[in-house]
């Protein structure tokens, strides 16, 4: 008996909060079993912060779902074990699972928009969690919910607890989800891409806050993310997953600074935050920023010019109330250059891109392409101007008509413009697919048979069909995985060299900007707060807002140190 007590005592000192051994998960589709996790093992010590990093489809969310018994559909654990504080929870019973979830393991889910019940008051949703686990009921639970919201950094919590989710911004909703996740003081918090839907500055605030709360309770954290920068900033240990296997695991410093596995090396190389941080430091250290002189030289050759662009929207149902989406914005885009427009959601950057493309009529001001005003052009001139600029959109799933074949999608601009006959259009499609490095055999496929990266290439090929001079990329790589993102950015750069394209690159991702852009416009609240050559703006931001944005890039400091 004493020996046994001793044994448990001695193991307790090192008992990890969570230990996963050779975990295998499989899905059954139409009678076929498909294994998606091939024996993964890792453990989380008390108070440890573990980041699980990988691309979409690597199995990182499946891992989290498996340990919470939340595998969707036909998914089930087919091998290995999950141990929580020494107790086997691989196949927990219903009762055990209910106690485990929320009470012992908290979850902060990915999407703040869909994870709150829209018809329940926010405070009620938190107190419900408390009541469900018997932590507090009635008035006490209501009171505790308000406290939790305060702790999660929601101002005026007592009043806001009585509001509904739609009255909260994305960042505030994520705070509510964090409050729910931490409500019962769990020993382990699983955060599945907790901030990937949020702006960088908001992301930083929330993660800072989460870290404060976590540290105070010494809760263990399992952070699931696709962003290496985030892992660098927020984790002690990193587990890199690819295709359902762990390719590399170890302390953050070691993994990210000296990656051993080729996959990790590629991932680290491709991470935009890494290269931009490195570049930023190199500029700070006094290397001549190449772009500054270049912009002076080529400024005379302006392709696109916006003068005093303003767009106001009238609010429905509210008499005379207007929202200014874009407010008196003027800028020039030099031929053959890439100009990035960065800003957070609501800064007016997407409206700006639609104004440029002539899809939305400006309230005031004008857009000129090679000196010609887009708005007033008519007939053949207007068509020519329209064709001189083509868009590439963010979502590779929504931007291709699902009922069309790839060939049909790519040659649509030619058919609209009545260019060529059947045979010549077919040749042109082959040529365009070749330009974006897609095999010609894809021509007869449908969009839903293609991967996200391939679809985005198709969208680029379509944009190039009319031989435009300006391509407006509206968050064109934001929805792609980091390796695919890098390939797509390389492709865009390559096309620019070969075809002399000019890009207007709309993005919220400052890390990407550094990789691709020559010039940058920083937008906030519909106005341009800063503009200039990328190197200049990144090295010496003139406004506090730009500085905030740059500092909020995940991993900026981490990789900056490395570059030094």
């Amino acid at each position, binding site marked *: 008996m004493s020996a046994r007590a001793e044994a448990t005592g001695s193991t307790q000192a090192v008992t990890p909060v969570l230990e996963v051994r050779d975990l295998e998960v499989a899905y059954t589709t139409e009678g076929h079993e498909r294994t998606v996790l091939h024996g993964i093992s890792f453990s989380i010590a008390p108070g440890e912060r573990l980041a699980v990093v990988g691309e979409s489809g690597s199995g990182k969310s499946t891992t989290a779902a498996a340990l919470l018994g939340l595998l969707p559909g036909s998914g089930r654990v087919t091998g290995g074990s999950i141990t929580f504080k020494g107790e086997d929870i691989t196949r927990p019973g219903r009762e055990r699972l209910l106690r485990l979830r929320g009470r012992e393991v908290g979850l902060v889910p990915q999407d703040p928009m869909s994870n709150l019940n829209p018809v329940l008051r926010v405070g009620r949703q938190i107190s419900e969690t408390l009541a469900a686990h018997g932590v507090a009921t009635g008035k006490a639970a209501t009171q505790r919910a308000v406290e939790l919201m305060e702790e999660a950094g929601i101002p005026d919590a007592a009043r806001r607890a009585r509001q509904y989710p739609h009255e909260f911004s994305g960042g505030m909703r994520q705070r509510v989800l964090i409050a729910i996740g931490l409500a019962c003081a769990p020993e382990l918090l699983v955060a599945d891409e907790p901030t990937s839907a949020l702006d960088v500055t908001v992301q930083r605030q929330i993660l800072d806050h989460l870290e404060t709360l976590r540290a105070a309770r010494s809760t263990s954290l399992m952070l699931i993310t696709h962003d290496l920068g985030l892992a660098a900033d927020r984790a002690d240990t990193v587990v890199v997953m690819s295709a359902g296997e762990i390719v590399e695991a170890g302390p953050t410093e070691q993994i990210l600074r000296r990656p051993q596995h080729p996959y990790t090396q590629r991932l680290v190389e491709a991470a935009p935050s890494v290269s931009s941080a490195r570049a930023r430091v190199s500029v700070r250290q006094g290397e001549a920023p190449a772009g500054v002189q270049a912009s002076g030289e080529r400024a005379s050759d302006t392709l696109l010019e916006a003068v005093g662009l303003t767009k106001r929207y009238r609010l429905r149902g509210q008499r005379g109330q207007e929202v200014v989406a874009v407010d008196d914005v003027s800028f020039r885009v030099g031929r053959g250059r890439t100009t990035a427009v960065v800003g957070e959601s609501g800064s007016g950057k997407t409206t700006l891109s639609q104004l440029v493309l002539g*899809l939305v009529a400006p309230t005031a001001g004008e857009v000129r392409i090679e000196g010609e005003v887009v708005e007033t052009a008519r007939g053949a001139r207007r068509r020519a101007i329209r064709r001189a600029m083509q868009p590439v*959109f963010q979502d590779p799933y929504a*931007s291709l008509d*699902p009922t069309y074949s790839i060939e049909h999608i790519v040659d649509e601009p030619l058919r609209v413009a009545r260019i060529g006959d059947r045979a010549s259009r077919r040749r042109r499609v082959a040529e365009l697919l070749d330009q974006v490095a897609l095999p010609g055999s894809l021509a007869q496929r*449908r969009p839903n048979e293609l991967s996200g990266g391939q679809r985005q290439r198709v969208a680029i090929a379509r*944009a190039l069909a*009319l031989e435009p001079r300006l391509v407006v990329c509206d968050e064109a790589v934001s929805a792609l995985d980091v390796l695919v993102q890098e390939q797509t950015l390389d492709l865009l750069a390559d096309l620019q060299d070969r075809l002399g394209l000019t890009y207007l690159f709309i993005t919220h991702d400052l890390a990407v900007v550094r990789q691709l852009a020559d010039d940058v416009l920083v937008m906030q609240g519909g106005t341009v707060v800063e503009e200039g050559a990328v190197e200049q703006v990144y090295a010496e931001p003139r406004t506090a807002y730009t500085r905030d944005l740059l500092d909020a890039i995940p991993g900026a400091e981490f990789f900056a140190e490395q570059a030094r």
Partner: protein
Amino acid sequence: MAIQVVPAEALGASSTPGEGAGGGDDLGSGRGRALRSLLRNPLGLVGAGLLLVVVLVALLAPLIAPYPPTQVHFDTPFQRLGTKGFWLGTDDLGRDLMSRVFYGTRASLEVGVLSVALAVVVGVPLGLVSGWWRLLDTFVSRLTDLLLAFPFLILAVGLAAVRGPSLTNAALALGIAQVPTMIRVVRAETLRWRGADFVTSARAMDAGSGWILGRHILPNAASAVIVQATVIMPVAIIGEATLSFLGLGIRPPAPSLGIMLSDAQQYIFRAPAAAVIPGVTIAVICLGFNFFGDALRDALDPTTSSR
């Protein structure tokens, strides 16, 4: 000009809704998958089976009916089920019930197909333009509200009363009564797709409204139109039976399930089969369409077909 293009496109799709606007091979593999999912759904299979029988009976009525539907046999009225020569019995005038049911089914489907065609031909273009042009929407939507405020049967009765009872007029009345729901469905689909990125990129390549409506929005809305057609069909078939029952639809002695019901009700205690048989036939036809339509909706709806 653009508005004229749309009905042409819509017509092309409505006569062969399964083919979309670009020919049979334009069906996405998404729809191929939908078809497979449909065939795995037991209720859908039952529905498809019932419909197949109903359609075959309607098409082959002249070949398989033992007698002409209006032929009277005064010496053998009120025959029972299973009588030799009259397997389903005869009515008060000694007309063969089986022949009349076959021809009645044919009439029902004729009215159903005609009114669905009308609802599609009128409703789809109006739905498209009202979803696309805000200004027209105000007008079309108010008109839709107005039509929907009438109970459809009253509308149909009114129209039949004005134009006189006949198969064509019944189909016309029932079709017009179904136009507003079709407008609503297509308008909603148009609103859903008009903001899609592929529509925006079509606008950026300077495609006209006719192009976008006909080649992007209509093919994507086709699923919803097909499903709505399977919903309208049984409503129109019951509507025809009701109108004929009331003497406002097909004129006797031409066979119609509604007329058979109306004739049989006087003798319902003496020869219940004469009333039950057309009643069951109507139920079977509608059940077939409803099962098939439900399965089709599930199969085409990405949120349910993923299972």
